[in-house]
């Protein structure tokens, strides 16, 4: 088995601030994802990456940047935090691009004041 570690667990930012969320996995998985979950709702895909230095936009990429620095890590940047972005951000990974099981980290809860 493996584990996906997200840091920080809680992030408080100011409106307009640039904020970075980090994710590490030790599954040795090729594909990594960032999802956003708003209160009481399902998850929506922000960005994903199929290999080191690859980036693919999801449904919700506007207002975000991402970086796959190496195979094991995938970071997400909120370029200018807005009050309606209070949500939980979940990082995930899977062995391949499709048809393989996806595993999630425990999330980063973002609050914008």
């Amino acid at each position, binding site marked *: 088995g493996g584990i996906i570690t997200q840091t920080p667990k809680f992030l408080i930012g100011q409106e307009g601030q640039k904020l970075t969320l980090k994710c590490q996995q030790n599954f040795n998985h090729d*594909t990594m*994802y960032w999802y956003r979950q708003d209160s*009481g*709702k*399902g*998850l*929506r*895909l922000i960005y*994903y990456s199929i290999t080191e230095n690859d980036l*693919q936009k*999801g*449904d919700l990429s506007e207002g975000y940047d991402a970086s796959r620095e190496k195979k094991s890590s995938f970071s997400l940047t909120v370029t200018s935090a807005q009050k309606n972005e209070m949500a*939980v951000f*979940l990082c995930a990974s899977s062995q391949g*691009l*499709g*048809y393989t*099981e*996806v*595993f*999630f980290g*425990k*999330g980063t*809860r973002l609050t914008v004041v």
Partner: protein
Amino acid sequence: GDQVKQSPSALSLQEGTNSALRCNFSIATTTVQWFLQNPRGSLMNLFYLVPGTKENGRLKSTFNSKESYSTLHIRDAQLEDSGTYFCAVLRASSSFSKLVFGQGTSLSVVP
């Protein structure tokens, strides 16, 4: 419209009883995953399904690809089964892949 619909949206079960959660989808897919999100927000993998049925302890899940639905059966519900159950369907092509999530079923198991 919603591509993955879960029902019911909320459910209260007495400890020891059985129930079934439903996931209907309008995406052509070959895999379905079920997750349980606990009150702290962690997503736990329950099932990864190709068409057919899997069982794990008191949980059983079926994926019917012809009729585009999946079910999750909970037998002898326990307090620790409480949380939000998500179904997610793989939408994939040669150039992209993503899980499309339903809105979840919030389950409360009461004594």
